[in-house]
Each structure stands twice: as structure tokens, then as C-alpha cells.
């Protein structure tokens, strides 16, 4: 499989001189299966640059898997140029929204409202299909299998594992490590602790043994103190996660929009310095726009 990062930023696009090395587009990852099948993980603003690259060889069959429907993971959808060209086929996968009951098609609908976008969905000429995924379900895409796991974020967030001919990659989307909402001594503390440990085991099992883990590493440990419950991970928690699951390589993504390139490297180096990674530990790197990895 080949994995290419088209957007690595969290929350809001952050272009400019301060972010030019790692990139300012929001989340979008292209995965090419061995047989050339196209899987796109998230449709942040990085999707637009991917679309431009895809136009060179049409028609395409794209399979876009949305981890969750926050803006920074869907904003590129209306700008995915192949949607407007007959002959292309685009399948969009994601979870049903629990509060409204709406399916993943709403991620497109909300953006195509007249006041906010000039084109209607009927004017998109590609074949477009939406598929709401059941939690834990697997979808075959050519020679690859995409299996989701429900993770921890303020809206339903599906992490995706892609397996292809013995190689595997897992992308968390946005994910905060589970934490106990009770204090030690509260009546419900122990019960809740058991519940989160059980859930954590399920997530670890879903990720176990992957060649590549791409994880939400928004914060440093110090920053996290004020961001608990916001639904994002830290460098240190993701490194621990990768170690637990036996991932060979961890790529840290969802960079803070306010973090300049130098600060990002500094935060990353600082986090690594506390982890004392050994030869049997995963390789840990920072996601960078344009970065390509083959596994």
C-alpha cells in the first residue's frame, strides 16, 4: 500500500510562512491499495489538492471514508472536482449521526445549502453513493478490507483499519484516550474504570500489529491539562498506544493550527525525549503534507 498525506492540520486550515514545511490543510490521507484501488481517509481541505492530482487520469473510482463530520474532516467534499465529471464514481462512507439520526449524506447536504455554496448536488454528475457503516463492519475495496472501530470524540468518530495483502494501516481520525469521569472514592469510579478498560482493550485489539498507525497527537501533555474532554490525543498517549498495540510505525497528525513548524518540531522532540524509545519500539514521525509512505 502507498499512503500519502494531503492534509495534516487539525481544526482549521492554517496556511502561511509559519506552517509551510508541514502544511496548513486539514485532514486528508490517500491510500492506494496494491492493486491501485483508491481509498481516501477524511475529506478535509487537503482533499482539494488530491482532486487536482486525480484529474490527470480519469475516470476514477474513489472510496472516501469519513472518520467524523466535524468541519476539518469534511470541508473538502464540495471541492472534490471528480464529483462534477460524468463517468467518475465516488462512494462516501461514514457513521450515522446519533443525535439527529441523519446519515453520512448529511455531511455533503449541509455544505451545499444555497447560501453557502453555489452548486446543488443534482449538478454533480459523477455517480455518488453514500453508505452508513455499522460499528465494527468491514468493507471490501478491491484487494483491501476497511474495518472501522468507534473511538472517543465529541461526535461519533470511526477509526479505520485497512488491510491489504498482509500489510495494514490504522487511522484514528480524532481520538482522545479514555479517562474516568469520576474521582477515586466516587461510587461509580470502579465500574467506570472497568468500562473504559474494556473499551480500550477493544480498540487495542482492532489496532494490534499494524504496520502503520496514524494517530491524533494534537497536544503536549502540558496543553492537555486544559483540554481534557475535547476529544483529542497527545504525543505521549499515542506513543503508548502504538507500543501497546505493537504498531511498527506511528505517524503523529492533527497538528494544532496555532503551532508553527519550529514549535511543532520542538513539541515533538520534547515528547520523544520523555519516551526513551528502544529498538523494539515503533518508529515515530510527524505527518507532513506531501509525505508518502509505502508499506
Amino acid at each position: 500500500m502507498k499512503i500519502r498525506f494531503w492534509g495534516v492540520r487539525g481544526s482549521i486550515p492554517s496556511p502561511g510562512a509559519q506552517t509551510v514545511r508541514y502544511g496548513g490543510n486539514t485532514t486528508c490521507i490517500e491510500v492506494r491499495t496494491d492493486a491501485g484501488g483508491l481509498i481516501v481517509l477524511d475529506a478535509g481541505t487537503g482533499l482539494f489538492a488530491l482532486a487536482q492530482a486525480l484529474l490527470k487520469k480519469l475516470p476514477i473510482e474513489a472510496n472516501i471514508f469519513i472518520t467524523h463530520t466535524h468541519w476539518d474532516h469534511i470541508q473538502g467534499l464540495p471541492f472534490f472536482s471528480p464529483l462534477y465529471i460524468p463517468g467518475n464514481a465516488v462512494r462516501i462512507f461514514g457513521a450515522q449521526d446519533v443525535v439527529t439520526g441523519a446519515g453520512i449524506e448529511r455531511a455533503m447536504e449541509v455544505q451545499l445549502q444555497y447560501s453557502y455554496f453555489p452548486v446543488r448536488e443534482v449538478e454533480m454528475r459523477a455517480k455518488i453513493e453514500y453508505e452508513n457503516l455499522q460499528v465494527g463492519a468491514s468493507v471490501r475495496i478491491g484487494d483491501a478490507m476497511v474495518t472501522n472501530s468507534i473511538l472517543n470524540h465529541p461526535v461519533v468518530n470511526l477509526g479505520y483499519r485497512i488491510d491489504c495483502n498482509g500489510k495494514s494501516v490504522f487511522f484514528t481520525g480524532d481520538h482522545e484516550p479514555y479517562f474516568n469521569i469520576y474521582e477515586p472514592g466516587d461510587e461509580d469510579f470502579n465500574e467506570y474504570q472497568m468500562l473504559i478498560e474494556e473499551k480500550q482493550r477493544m480498540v487495542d485489539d482492532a489496532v494490534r500489529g499494524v504496520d502503520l498507525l496514524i494517530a491524533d497527537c494534537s497536544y503536549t501533555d502540558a496543553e492537555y491539562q486544559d483540554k481534557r474532554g475535547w476529544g483529542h490525543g497527545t504525543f505521549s498517549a499515542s506513543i503508548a498506544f502504538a507500543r501497546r498495540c505493537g504498531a511498527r510505525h506511528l505517524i503523529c497528525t492533527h497538528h494544532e493550527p496555532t503551532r508553527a513548524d519550529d514549535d511543532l518540531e520542538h513539541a515533538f522532540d520534547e515528547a520523544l525525549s520523555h519516551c526513551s524509545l528502544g529498538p523494539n519500539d515503533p518508529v515515530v514521525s510527524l505527518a507532513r503534507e506531501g509525505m508518502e509512505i509505502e508499506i
Partner: protein
Amino acid sequence: MTQNAIEIERELGIVVERMPAFPKSVQRILELTRRVDCSPKDLVGIIEKDPVITLKVLRVINSAQLSLPTKITSINQSVVYLGVNTIKNLALSIAAIGILPASNAAGFDIDRYLLHSLTTATLARQLCALYANGEADPGDCYIAGLLHDFGKIVFARFKPEQFGQVLARCAAETGLSSHHAEQALIGADHTLVGAMLAAKWQFPAPLVECIRNHHSPAAPASAMSDCLRMADLISRLSNQGDSEHPYREGEAPINPQRFGPDLDRVIASLGDLDKLIAEARGFAQAGRAS
């Protein structure tokens, strides 16, 4: 399932969908969620005291669309799976429906209903911890207690005229229990309706069975069922709601093999019931006063 039963189930589903929650929980949820950093444990504490919100949250999370690998039977568990923000927004959307009126055409006392449900839930959880020998989960027993009479509140809104007659007949005839009167006057009792809803929304089978059988001593015993029936009995004995089915001397003991022959000893083992009842009463009545 017959065509008629399918139709009834569909109608019941719609009724529950539109059913508002209890005054106190709606008020507390609106208060709490004005703060962006509202405490997750406070929110759970409110939701799990309201049978309507609890039922709806569990219904959504156990829905076929999501199809979680595990059946979710507690609000804590739903927070682990969906996150507190989703649960908060679900609770808010339910709170936005309005509040369950204190009076209804059937004349059913919803404060007493809530008091009985809450007391039974808390007692069932305690009994489970003491007597279930690990055969049931205390959280499941709490939910069973909270929802066991849910069918009554559905009747009060769905069949107010007939349910009003049920209540009148129970008041007039000493010894007549509401589930018998419901069977005679409505054609189905609240255990059936509660179980039907729980099954429709894919609650775990033991929970469905437990609600279905809580007035059927001949039904196969289970730890959850024993704890629910004992909690219901103690709650009625302490005069905590359920006016339609007051405790009567000489009621058959609940599974003496589990609880022993002496009801007083079981009650004593639960500690200070007055505190528990005062808490439930505070929650059940505060909404009306405000």
C-alpha cells in the same frame, strides 16, 4: 407477531418518541449544559434518574443503524462509547420536547411513578451487589428497576381513558393489582408493553425478560429478575409509589433460596433506606415545585 401486535408496537414507538422527560431532569439538564465545561458525572447522575431519557439514550445507542458490538445497558457505558458530548446533546434534544405534565387524562400520578421507579432501581442495584453472586450486573439491575413499570406511563399517554378506568378499579377493589386490571380493560398489561419496547429497541434479552416477568412468579428465575422483584416488593412495602399495587401482608416470598426466608433481614442488610428514599423523593418532587 400478529398484524395487530406490529401495529401496536409501531404506535407505542411513536408515543414514546414524543414523550417528554420529567420536570426535574429537564430543568437540571438545561442548567448544567449552559456551562461548556459541564461535569460529565453530574450529567450522568441526572440522566440515569429519568426513565424517559434513559430509555431514549439506550434506544439510540443500541439502534440497528449503529449496531455496536456490545449491548449498552447503562448511561455510564453509553458515555464510554459515544462520549459525553453526544450524550449531552441527546439529553438536550429530549429536554427540548418539554416536560411530562404533572397531570394527565388518566389521572396517573407521575411523581409517585418516578419515586417508585427510582427507589426500585436503587434497591435492585444494592440487592444485586449483595445477593446476585456475580450472576447479574448491578448496573443492569438499576436499569431494570428504572424501566420496569414504563408501560404504565405509556398507557397514561397512549390509552388515558382505559388506564383511568384501570386506576379507578384498582382504587375501588382491594386486592386487585393493576396488571390484572390492565389485562381486563386494555387487553395487555404494562409488563408486556415495557418488554415490547425494550425488545423493539434491542435491549439485552435478560433485561427484556426481566421487565416482562416482573409480575409472573412462575416465570424462570434469574438473578436480575429476583433482584428486581425483591426491590419492587421492598419499595411497595416502604410505600414508595405504585399506588395501584400496594404491598399486602402474605405476599409470596421472592426466591428464598437467594434471599433467605426473612424479609426483615434482607431489608436490614440494605442499610439506611430512609436516606435513599429521601433522595428519590427529592428528585421526583422538586421538578413540580419549581
